[in-house]
């Protein structure tokens, strides 16, 4: 028994390092935030974040696109995406687009629709690789 426990140590210790280290390595090495959904990892890349900021940030000049409320930050965006993916209603993406759509109603205004009305819902598009493609209020 004692011999078996001794042999197990060299395997358990590196495994613990890998397990706890992985969550830190991804954001630091690649600038990505990772959240754990039920059986699914969702990654918000720098690229997708920039896309969302250009289209959907409160000061974005893009026409015809939902806008987040003033005060949105990268951190609060990540939190909203996490919540929408964890608790939202998923559906297959439409008309042959790859990936899935998650929609979630926060029950409070999170931004505006394209006609300027208050929007309480968030639509998040997730690629087949588990990466956020876009996210916007509606």
């Amino acid at each position, binding site marked *: 028994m004692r011999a078996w426990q001794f042999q197990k140590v060299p395997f358990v210790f590196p495994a613990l390092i890998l397990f706890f280290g992985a969550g830190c390595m991804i954001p630091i090495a690649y600038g990505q935030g990772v959240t754990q959904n039920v059986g699914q990892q969702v990654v918000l890349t720098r690229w997708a974040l920039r896309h969302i900021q250009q289209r959907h940030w409160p000061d974005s000049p893009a*026409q*015809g696109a*939902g806008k987040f409320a003033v005060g949105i930050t990268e951190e609060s965006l990540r939190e909203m995406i996490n919540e929408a993916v964890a608790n939202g209603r998923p559906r297959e993406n439409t*008309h*042959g687009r790859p990936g899935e759509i998650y929609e979630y109603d926060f029950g409070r205004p999170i931004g505006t629709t*394209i*006609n300027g009305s208050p929007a309480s819902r968030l639509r998040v598009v997730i*690629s087949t690789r588990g990466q956020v493609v*876009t996210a*916007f209020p509606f």
Partner: protein
Amino acid sequence: MRMDFRLSEDWNQDFADMATVEETDLRYYVAQGDVVLGTDQTDLSADWGWIPLVDFALALREIADALSESEGSETFEFTESEATLQFDRVGDKVVITSSYRPGEVTVPFSDFRKQVDEFARRLDKELLQRHPELGLNPDYQRLKLSRSH
């Protein structure tokens, strides 16, 4: 009915190598522009500058395929908003309405089918002229914008 596009000028700054752009990028980020859609009486254009035109062409082709069999309704969802275009097959015609502009466009289904195919073919031609390396892109080739029936 007019169905046309205007490519924006600034979308390609983010894509150094169009030969390796993947399908999700092609359908969400590449070849953005305006969609021109309407008649002399009704304008359902989406002139927001960011419509991914490859995606629009592919989705409308799928909608035309779906409506070719029988009467029914299909909805196109824009990629970055809650805006939609609704296509209803009524007899041998298609009625098009939008969530963002008033009015409707009614067009014979055969004309709709032809316009959808022509839109995709023109887009394919213009994109390949501007970015010949797309011709080497396996994902782009697989989408077959200029397919023939």
